[in-house]
């Protein structure tokens, strides 16, 4: 089952799915460089320059209120690691990212397999599953705050009505439930996008592979484990990486639901950075946190890609 005969059908299938490389167009090198230049200059100014500036201000006493920053060496780093905010926030970010990535990948894989099936209204379903990703996060967070409200929210009313609860749960206000609730809200917003990426991989599987396997008498389960899964595995791996990196980056969903509370239970590093920079006005310390987080993400990405299954990284480029 695992090896499909090298028939003409298979060669056709391979040909209709070219390797993950950019096609080779005619040269026109000067024109190409000229056309890419505006974007490269733009990104140099908006990403490279701020990153370099971030490293510099992390070494100074800069604050959001102005004044002349002084060079202070690594003392900002000593402060953020010494005052006990970075460590807990870092661990929370880790739990947030891993929990989120797992939940989102599972949802996305399930949804993609469902939407890959042919049914009436398939295109409509594929488009509108994106609804939670398209609307502003303030709408998403308001929606869930309203539905999960302890006093009037529909979720509590339904759970109470069904006799599943004795007392309403304050999902976003209780230190016990807030973290898991925000992970859920974030997954609800993000998984449709990851669904499309997995769906793209499913669409790339040539029907010939299924047909060849069927000829050999494969069951549906075998079709899934021997054809579908090997094909989408690299993409699942990439989706896991994207899900993790995007989760780490999430600021709005958390800020607009809990502001990092209750009692810091949802304070991940982006929230910490925001509070440090714009509520405590310590730009230098906030930048030191950003640099530390950037180094960790870089390390994570390098290790993750290092252990990627064959083909995963090219699939992403593709």
């Amino acid at each position, binding site marked *: 089952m695992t090896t499909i005969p090298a028939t003409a059908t298979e060669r056709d299938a391979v040909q209709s799915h070219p390797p993950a490389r*950019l096609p080779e167009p005619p040269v026109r090198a000067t024109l190409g460089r000229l*056309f*890419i230049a505006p974007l490269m200059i733009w990104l140099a100014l908006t990403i490279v320059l701020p990153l370099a500036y971030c490293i510099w201000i992390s070494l100074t006493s800069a604050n959001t209120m102005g004044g002349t920053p002084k060079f202070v060496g690594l003392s900002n780093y000593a402060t953020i690691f010494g005052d006990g905010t970075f460590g807990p926030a870092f661990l929370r970010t880790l739990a947030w990212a891993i929990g989120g990535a797992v939940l989102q990948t599972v949802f996305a894989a399930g949804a993609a397999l469902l939407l890959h099936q042919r049914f009436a209204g398939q295109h409509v379903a594929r488009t509108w599953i*994106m609804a939670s990703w398209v609307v502003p996060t303030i709408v998403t967070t308001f929606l869930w705050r309203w539905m999960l409200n302890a006093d009037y929210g529909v979720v509590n009313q339904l759970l109470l009505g069904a006799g599943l609860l004795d007392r309403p749960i304050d999902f976003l206000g209780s230190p016990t439930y807030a973290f898991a609730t925000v992970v859920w809200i974030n997954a609800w917003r993000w998984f449709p996008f990851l669904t499309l990426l997995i769906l793209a991989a499913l669409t790339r599987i040539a029907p010939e592979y299924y047909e060849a396997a069927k000829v050999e008498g494969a069951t549906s389960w075998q079709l899934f484990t021997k054809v579908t899964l090997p094909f989408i595995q690299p993409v699942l791996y990439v989706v896991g990486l994207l899900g993790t990196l995007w989760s780490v980056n999430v600021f709005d969903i958390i800020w607009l639901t809990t502001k990092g509370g209750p009692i810091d239970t949802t304070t991940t590093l982006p929230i910490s950075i925001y509070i440090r920079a714009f509520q405590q006005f310590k730009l230098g310390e906030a930048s030191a946190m950003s640099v530390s987080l*950037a180094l960790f993400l870089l390390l994570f990405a390098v290790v993750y890609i290092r252990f990627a299954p064959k083909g995963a990284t090219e699939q992403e480029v593709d």
Partner: protein
Amino acid sequence: MASSLVKPTIRAILIVILLLMIGAPFVWMVLSSLQPNSALIQPGNFFSPALVTFGNYVKLPSATQYVLLARNSLLVALISTAIAIPLALLAAYSVFRTRYRGRTFIYNLLLVVYIFPGVLLLAPLFGLFAVTGLLNSWASLVIMNVTFAVPFSVWLMRGFFTSIPNGIEEAAAIDGATDMQILWKVIVPLTAPGIVVTATYTFVLSWTEFMFASVFIIDDRLKTLPVGLEALVSQYSIDWGLLSAAAVMAALPVVIIFTFAGRYFVESITSGAGK
């Protein structure tokens, strides 16, 4: 199509659950916006058809800054889109239809920008915008919207650009067309759906952007809708009917755009760009 893992009935049930999971909260939001607040805070009451009212929508423009906020958001989104389209078009042409050293590297670089965590730029950008006088201006928002919209747009346009036959520029050049004429008269019409996708993505990204807007804009008159709505949610935290109406109206523009262009967007991810 090929692998039907489960029986059609179970599959249908699962699809309905999936669509409900996404759709039900929105239905609830719309229903809430059509009820007076007094009905919404009545225990045990879910939705009373007899009490349906448009009162919340009528109250919205007078009780809140909704009109001003929506206008600001619209302008920021339109300016961002107008700048993103030519940048993305030129970059996509360069990456997919010409060849030079470093082309693949640039393509990969664009993908890195797409997964780059914007939160890392928050503190340094605040400093840089303060120094350059761009703080508290729409320019700061437009600049960041374009930065994060264009790289992904280039990726989305891949299928549209690579499907154009290779000799077409040469044929036009023989007819005496200049490079800019070829781009404008040949490439733009052929990649029109890709331009629609770029416009959709940039508009949605700009309309929904919260993090940069909450930090860079200080003046209330310049604030965008997501930031303004946040203040509204805190201010009217007990008027769930009014807030639901505000949320519906904030979601409406992107829903309308997605009704027309959503299909191209989804297809360019699942088929065109995936190739």
